C-alpha cells in the first residue's frame, strides 16, 4: 500500500489506572472506507479523541499525511484536513443551522487559504453543503428545532464544511430508523466518492457491512482484528468478544 | 531566626490549617464532588458566625454548641438553595455563567444584608477558654485555636467516614463520576446531590462558629476566605477530602510563617498566590483525580 493517509502506531492512553487504549496500530489508506467496531467501552471514542487532538495520547504516534501530529492541538489538526462528527451532536445552540456551517468555513477553510471569505461566498458554500444533506430548507432554523436525524446530518455537514481529507463519523446513526440509517450510509458513500477518506465507527452491523471496504475491531483497548469485512466477521475472536453467534 | 517564634508560628499554622480544612470541607463536596461552583460558601460561614454571635451574646451558650443546634436549619437552607439552583440552571442545561452569577449574587446579597443588619463593627464571642492557652515548655497552644482545630478534625473525620462507609455517602462520591449507574440502582442523582449540597452548607454552620472563636468578624471577612478555600481545594485536588486536609494544613503553616515574619498584610496574597501557582503548574492538585 502506498503511504497511508493516517498512520497510528503503538497508541496508548490511560485514565489514572485504567488503560483505555493499549498499543493500537491502525493505518488508513487515502480514499479508503474503514469501519471500526467494538463493544461499548472498548475505547473507540477515546481513539477518535486521540486522533483528533481532544485528548493527548501517552504512548505511540499519530501521523497524518506523512507528518506526526500528536503534539498538535485539535484545531490545528482540523486545519490539516482531519474532521470528525461527535457521537452526541454538538451544534452551536445560539446560532442558526447555516451559521453553524459558517464556523468551519471561516476558521478552517478560510484560515487555510489565508484570505477572508466574502459573505456571498460563505452563503453559497453553506447552501451547497446543506443541499448535500437535504437540510437547505432549514438554513434559518435553530438546532433545537431539528429532528434527531437532521441534527446528525448537520453534525456531518459541519464536519464536511471543513473540507477534510479524512472524516471520522462517530456513531452517526445511533437511534435512527432503518431508512434514516440508509440515508446516512448513502451520504457517507457519496462523500467518499468525492474524495474524502472516511472512518465509520458504528454498532449497526448492517450499515458497517454496506459501507466498509475494510473493518477493524477494538476490544478493551486492543485491536483484535483488521481486514476484509467478510473475513473479520467470521473471525472467532471477534465473534466471541463482540458479535456473538 | 528565633526558633521559638518559628516553632509557634508553625504550630499556630497547623491549628489554623485544621480550621481551614473545616471551612473548605463544604466546598470540597459542592465543587469537588458535585461540580457546583458555590462561591457563596463563605457567606454561609459568616452567617453561621453571626448566628453564633447573637445566641452567644444573648444566652451565653458556647458558640460551637449554638452551631450544632443550628445544623438542621443550615441543612434545610442548603437543600433549598440547591433546589433553586437545580431548577433554574442545572436542569435547563444552562451555561455555567449563569450559575456562577447566581452564587456570586447570593454571596453579595448576604454580605450586604449582614452589613445592613449588624453594621461594620467587629463582633466576637465569649467563651471560657478563649484567651487561655495550653503550654508545653516553649510550645504554646492558644485554646481559641486549639478547640476549633480539634472539633474541625472531628468533623472532618466524620465526613470522611460518612462518605466512605455509608450508602448515601458512597452515592455522593458516585454521583459525579457515574450518575447513570446510580439511576440503574434506583437512586435519584438529584436527591443525592441535594443531600450532599445540604451537608456542605451544614458544615458552614460549624465553620462559622469556629471562625468567630478564632477571630473577630465583620461581614466582608467572607471574601478573604474565598481565596483560601479555592486555593486549598485546588491545591489538594478536587474531590479528595484527605487532599483538602493536607493542603489546608500546608496553607495554614505558610500563611502563619509569612504573617509572623513579614507582617499580616501579606496574608491574603499568600493563598491567592498559591492558587495561581497551582493552577499554572499542576492544576489537578496534589491528590486530584
Amino acid at each position, binding site marked *: 500500500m502506498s503511504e497511508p493517509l493516517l498512520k497510528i502506531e503503538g497508541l496508548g492512553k490511560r485514565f489514572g489506572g485504567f488503560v483505555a487504549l493499549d498499543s493500537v496500530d491502525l493505518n488508513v489508506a487515502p480514499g479508503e472506507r474503514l469501519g471500526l467496531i467494538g463493544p461499548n467501552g472498548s475505547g473507540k471514542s477515546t481513539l477518535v479523541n486521540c486522533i483528533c487532538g481532544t485528548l493527548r495520547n501517552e504512548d505511540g504516534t499519530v501521523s497524518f499525511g506523512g507528518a506526526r501530529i500528536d503534539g498538535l492541538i485539535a484545531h490545528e489538526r482540523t486545519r490539516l484536513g482531519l474532521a470528525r462528527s461527535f457521537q452526541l451532536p454538538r451544534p452551536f445552540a445560539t446560532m442558526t443551522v447555516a451559521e453553524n456551517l459558517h464556523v468551519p468555513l471561516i476558521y478552517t477553510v478560510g484560515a487555510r487559504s489565508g484570505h477572508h471569505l466574502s459573505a456571498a461566498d460563505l452563503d453559497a458554500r453553506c447552501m451547497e453543503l446543506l443541499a448535500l444533506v437535504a437540510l437547505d430548507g432549514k438554513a434559518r432554523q435553530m438546532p433545537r428545532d431539528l429532528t434527531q436525524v437532521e441534527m446528525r446530518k448537520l453534525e456531518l455537514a459541519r464536519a464536511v*464544511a471543513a473540507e477534510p481529507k479524512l472524516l471520522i463519523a462517530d456513531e452517526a446513526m445511533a437511534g435512527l430508523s432503518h431508512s434514516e440509517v440508509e440515508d446516512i450510509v448513502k451520504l457517507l458513500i457519496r462523500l467518499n466518492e468525492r474524495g474524502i477518506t472516511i472512518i465509520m465507527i458504528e454498532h449497526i452491523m448492517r450499515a458497517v457491512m454496506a459501507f466498509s471496504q475494510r473493518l477493524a475491531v477494538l476490544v478493551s483497548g486492543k485491536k483484535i482484528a483488521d481486514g476484509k469485512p467478510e473475513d473479520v466477521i467470521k473471525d472467532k475472536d471477534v465473534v466471541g468478544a463482540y458479535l456473538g453467534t | 531566626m528565633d526558633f521559638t517564634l518559628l516553632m509557634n508560628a508553625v504550630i499556630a499554622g497547623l491549628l489554623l490549617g485544621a480550621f481551614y480544612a473545616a471551612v473548605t470541607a463544604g466546598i470540597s463536596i459542592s465543587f469537588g464532588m458535585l461540580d457546583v461552583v458555590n462561591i457563596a460558601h463563605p457567606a454561609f460561614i459568616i452567617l453561621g458566625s453571626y448566628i453564633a454571635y447573637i445566641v452567644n451574646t444573648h444566652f451565653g451558650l458556647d458558640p460551637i454548641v449554638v452551631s450544632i443546634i443550628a445544623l438542621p436549619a443550615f441543612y434545610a437552607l442548603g437543600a433549598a438553595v440547591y433546589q433553586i439552583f437545580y431548577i433554574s440552571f442545572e436542569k435547563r442545561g444552562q451555561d455555567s455563567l449563569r450559575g456562577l452569577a447566581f452564587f456570586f449574587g447570593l454571596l453579595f*446579597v448576604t454580605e450586604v444584608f449582614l452589613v445592613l443588619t449588624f453594621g461594620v463593627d467587629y463582633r466576637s464571642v465569649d467563651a471560657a477558654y478563649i484567651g487561655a492557652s495550653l503550654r508545653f515548655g516553649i510550645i504554646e497552644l492558644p485554646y481559641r485555636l486549639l478547640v476549633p482545630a480539634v472539633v474541625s478534625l472531628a468533623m472532618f473525620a466524620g465526613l470522611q467516614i460518612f462518605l466512605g462507609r455509608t450508602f448515601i455517602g458512597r452515592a455522593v462520591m458516585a454521583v459525579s463520576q457515574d450518575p447513570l449507574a446510580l439511576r440503574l440502582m434506583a437512586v435519584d442523582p438529584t436527591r443525592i446531590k441535594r443531600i450532599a449540597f445540604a451537608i456542605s452548607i451544614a458544615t458552614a454552620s460549624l465553620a462559622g462558629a469556629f471562625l468567630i472563636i478564632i477571630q473577630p468578624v465583620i461581614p466582608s471577612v467572607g471574601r478573604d476566605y474565598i481565596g483560601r478555600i479555592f486555593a486549598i481545594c485546588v491545591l489538594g485536588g478536587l474531590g479528595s477530602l484527605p487532599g483538602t486536609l493536607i493542603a489546608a494544613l500546608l496553607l495554614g503553616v505558610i500563611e502563619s510563617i509569612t504573617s509572623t515574619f513579614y507582617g499580616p498584610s501579606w496574608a491574603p496574597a499568600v493563598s491567592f498566590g498559591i492558587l495561581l501557582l497551582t493552577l499554572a503548574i499542576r492544576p489537578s492538585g496534589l491528590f486530584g483525580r
Partner: protein
Amino acid sequence: MRTPLFILIQFAVALALYLVLRFFGNDYLFFAGYTVLQFIVLATAWNILGGYCGYVNFGSAGFFAIGAYTSVCLFTIGQAPEDVFPAAILPAMQWIFPLPVPVIIVCSGIMAGLVGLGTGYLTLRLRGVFFAIATLALAVVLQTLVVNWSFVGGSRGAYVIPANTVPVFGPYIQYLFALMLLLTIVALTSARLIERSSLGVGFATIRDDELAAEACGVPTLKLKLIATVLSGALMGMAGAPFPFYIGYTEPGSVFDLGYAVNAIAMPMIGGTTSWAGPLIGAILLGTLQQIATVTISSAANLLLVGLLLIGFVIVAPTGVVGLWQSWFGKGAKR
C-alpha cells in the same frame, strides 16, 4: 447599519448630551454622568469576555485598579521626574512628563491588557470556572500589592490634583466627562464590531461549545486571550481617569466590590449577547443606584443590585435585550 454611520450617530448623541448638560450648568450632573459612563465602559468590557465568550471575570475591580494606579504612578512621576529618573535621561523625561490624560489612559489600557494576557495565559487552558476564580485571586493580590506599595500611597492613599480648569471645556470635570464620552464610544464601537465580525463568531462558538469549536478549526486559546486582553484593557482605560475624578485615591475606593458586582450585573441584566445589553444595563442600574443612594442608603443600593442580579439570572436569563427580542419577535435568535 455600517460602522462609520454608527460612530457618527454616537458622536452626535454624545455631543448633544454634553451640550445639554453644559446648558444646565450644574457640575453634579457631570459627576453623576461620569459615573454612569464609567459603568457603561466597564459593563461593555466585561461582556466581551463574559457575554460573548462565556468566561466570567470576577476581578473587574482589579483591572479597573490597574488603570487607576497606572494613572497615579504616571501622575506622581510627572509631578517630580527628578525624583525618579537618573540624570542621564532626565532632560528627555522632563520633556515628556507630565503626560496629558489621554496618553495616560492609553498607557493604563496597555498595562491592564498585559496583566490580562498574563492571567489568561496561566489559566485559560483550564476550565472556565478556574479562570473565574483566578480573576478573583488577581484582584486580591493586586490590592495587597497596592496596600504595601508606598509610591502610590499604600493604604494611606494618594492625592492626584489636576488643574482647576482646562481650555475649551472649562471646569475639569467637564473635560473628564468628555474623555469618558470618547471612551464610551470606543468601547461600544469595538463591542459592536467584534459582534459582527468573524471574531465574534469565534467567541460565540467558545461560549456555546468549546470542544466543537476546536473541532471546527477555531483557535480557542488564542481567541480567549484576545478577548481577555481587550476586556482588561478597556477596564483599565475606564479606571485611568478615576484618580483625577476623585482627587484622593485610596485602595478601598478603587477596589470597591461595587465594581465587580456591577460589571457582572449590568450586562447580565441588560443582556449579554449584544453590545446594547451592557449599555441598557448600565444606564438602568446606574440610575437606579444613584436614586437609591440618595433616597435610602449606599448599602441599600448594593443590596438592590445583588437582588436584581439574582432575580434576572433566574427569571430572565437573556436580560432586557432578550425580553425585548422575544416580545417584539426579532426572530428565533436567542
